[in-house]
């Protein structure tokens, strides 16, 4: 009766709801092809409850005590985690054990490597850590695949969960890079202007030092095709070299030269003598523009396992963006090429305006100053 009353009195007081964190472990799995790299942070206090780490019984866990128990910790933890891909179970190999601190104390950090013996379509994670001694324990999972991260929570009620890995399909990934490529060519005004300036005279031909409207659409197309192709080949080349880290140029140099290329292209329209082979200009400066694209691609973060695919996809995106611009420009320019205003207003005026803009860019980029604060 006495103990009952003690219990009663104590139960009556509202139990404190402010207690510190319940038991959690943090599991990170990073999937690449048929391999999984794992990191698992388990609280030392939980490990002490489960397998007893406090050898000298003084209520304190030292690094010595933890290190001596590494074998047991590894065996205990790995016996409570099963990974499988489809019907194949993955082997898990412990790599090392370290220490880290979370908000509620010290954790043992288990790094492991898992091999599933084949491509992982669906990863099944069977998590049973501590549920037998702490029913409120939870495992917080971060699953990384490609650039994507999923999170999930394991509890006693949801100890087995499946994650589809293949859903990050090649197609989705490549679509993402195509999209980025298009976005970049449209938002990167310097590339658009460079291309447009080169294309402005394409619907004209130079006869006796004066601009005249070109006759057939097919020859205009051929002209445009040669310029665009030269530009494409050149920037693809340098984009690939830079993305693969074969060649690296300082970004300030690249960006200023791109601005300079726009200025020069504009000048070329004003002094047409030098523009007989505009595809050569397109090619030469295309090389520099490629380095500019590469900077964007690096910022996006290239997945290691599909470097080539993303590179090609990004490039395809750039081309699609380019072709869209050409498709919008060419028929329009072809239609008004005979008008009085085309050579004077559009070609000369347009080129002058572009030169002015590009000069501002050049000054800003080369000398690292802000002329027109946005």
């Amino acid at each position: 009766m006495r103990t009952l009353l003690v219990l009663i009195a104590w139960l009556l007081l509202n139990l404190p709801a402010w207690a510190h964190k319940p038991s959690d472990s943090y599991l990170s799995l990073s999937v690449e092809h048929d391999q999984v790299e794992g990191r698992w942070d388990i609280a030392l206090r939980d490990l002490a409850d489960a397998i007893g780490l406090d050898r000298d019984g003084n209520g304190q866990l030292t690094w010595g005590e933890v290190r001596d128990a590494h074998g047991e910790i590894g065996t205990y933890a790995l016996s409570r985690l099963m990974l499988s891909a489809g019907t194949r179970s993955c082997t898990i190999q412990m790599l090392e054990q370290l220490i880290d601190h979370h908000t509620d104390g010290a954790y043992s950090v288990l790094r492991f490597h898992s091999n599933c013996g084949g491509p992982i379509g669906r990863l099944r994670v069977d998590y049973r850590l501590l549920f037998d001694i702490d029913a409120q324990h939870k495992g917080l999972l971060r699953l990384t695949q490609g650039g994507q991260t999923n999170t999930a929570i394991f509890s006693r009620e949801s100890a087995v969960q499946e994650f589809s890995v293949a859903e990050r399909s090649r197609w989705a990934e490549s679509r993402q890079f195509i999209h980025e490529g298009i976005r970049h060519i449209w938002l990167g005004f310097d590339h658009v202007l460079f291309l447009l300036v080169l294309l402005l005279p394409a619907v004209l031909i130079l006869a006796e030092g004066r601009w005249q409207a070109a006759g057939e659409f097919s020859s205009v197309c051929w002209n445009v095709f040669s310029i665009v192709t030269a530009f494409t080949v050149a920037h693809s080349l340098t984009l690939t070299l830079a993305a693969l880290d074969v060649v690296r140029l300082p970004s300030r140099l690249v960006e200023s030269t791109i601005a300079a290329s726009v200025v020069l292209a504009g000048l070329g329209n004003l002094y047409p003598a030098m523009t007989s082979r505009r595809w050569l200009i397109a090619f030469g400066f295309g090389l520099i523009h490629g380095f500019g694209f590469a900077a964007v691609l690096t910022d996006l973060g290239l997945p290691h396992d599909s470097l080539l695919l993303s590179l090609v996809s990004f490039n395809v995106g750039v081309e699609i963006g380019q072709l869209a611009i050409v498709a919008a420009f060419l028929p329009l320019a072809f239609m008004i090429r005979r008008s009085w205003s085309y050579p004077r207003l559009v070609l000369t005026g347009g080129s002058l305006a572009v030169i002015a803009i590009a000069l501002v860019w050049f000054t800003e980029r080369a000398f690292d100053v802000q002329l027109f604060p946005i």
Partner: protein
Amino acid sequence: MIRLLTVGCVIGWLMLSQIDITYAEPYRPTDDAQVLERLSFKVTDPAARAIESLRADLRNNPRHLESAVKLATRYIEQGRSEGDPRFLGQAQAVLTAWWNEVTPPPAMLLLRATIRQNAHEFSEALADLDQVLVVQPTNTQAWLTKASILQVQARYDEARRACQRLARLAASHVLLGCLGDIAGVTGQSAKSQELLRQVLSAPTLSGRERIWIATILAETAVRTGAIREAEEYFAEAFKVGIKDQYLLGVYADFLLDQGRYRDVVSLLQSETRADGLFLRLALAEQALRLPAFQSHTAELAARFAASRERGTTVHVREEARFTLALLRDAQRALPLAQANWNVQREPADARILLECALADGNRAAAQPVLDWLNANHVEDFRLRQLSEQIQETTF
């Protein structure tokens, strides 16, 4: 504008320091003697021994209900002293064999109700208790636990009826403690204090019971503004010598309100594990402009973030208080205080909601608390002050 900038700076700095705490690289210590963690007990502690022997009993006889109930009870009691919710999870694990039965044994249902009460699953806990009371209408403990949950939910009439069932079932001081606690909040503090004072003078009270009664008396005195009296009751409760998280928290709040920040720091200096006490420590450090305040605030922010990541919401009252008082972000604190009020309705919950509503200039948000104050004739001079402030202020 300046306020906005300050909030921005604080949050930015917190995020940076949070990254510092949570995402530091794992390392390999170089010194074998480096202490990485302090456990709840030494092997030689009586509590550890008791738990170990109960565990051994259960290992030998895993389906033995009595051993399981004893061990689970022990765990829950330990959780109360330490403020460590791990013990509740361990208690639950011990009861696994009976947890999902359709009609679990009453002893097991009682423990499940307590565990659920702790997780703020109040309606599930009440359902468990009602199930016990169907089989055992004279179960003292079930009536008591039911009364305390109903009180937290501000269902005072039902809570009183639950207490009254104790009249012939338990010793008189249990009945008086149960009723006195409710009376102290709902406008009968004088009567409540008179009765409980007599109870406290009885020499036969156990330690836990003495802490319980003295804490109710102290809280009631605080609410009526009887500072010296409150101090005496707190002293009485501490004299028992059993560590009690709830008592520590209430006393720290009392000291904070008195501006006795140094006393809070010395009281809670080593209590950095339990979030609620840690929060009060940081509040005192903030008032004293101690350097530890910054790192402690960052640590608290990380803990609340971790708790959200895990998907638990039992710390909402503390989080609201943290967000309002330490981050000074009333806009974010108010919804937390409102969410908390939807779950629990004790004077402390009312206070944080009123403070948030006042700081955010939102009178409508305070209305549920104002209604509660009037409907129940709540006696609490601080809540009355706050409610007047809210009614006087033109937002």
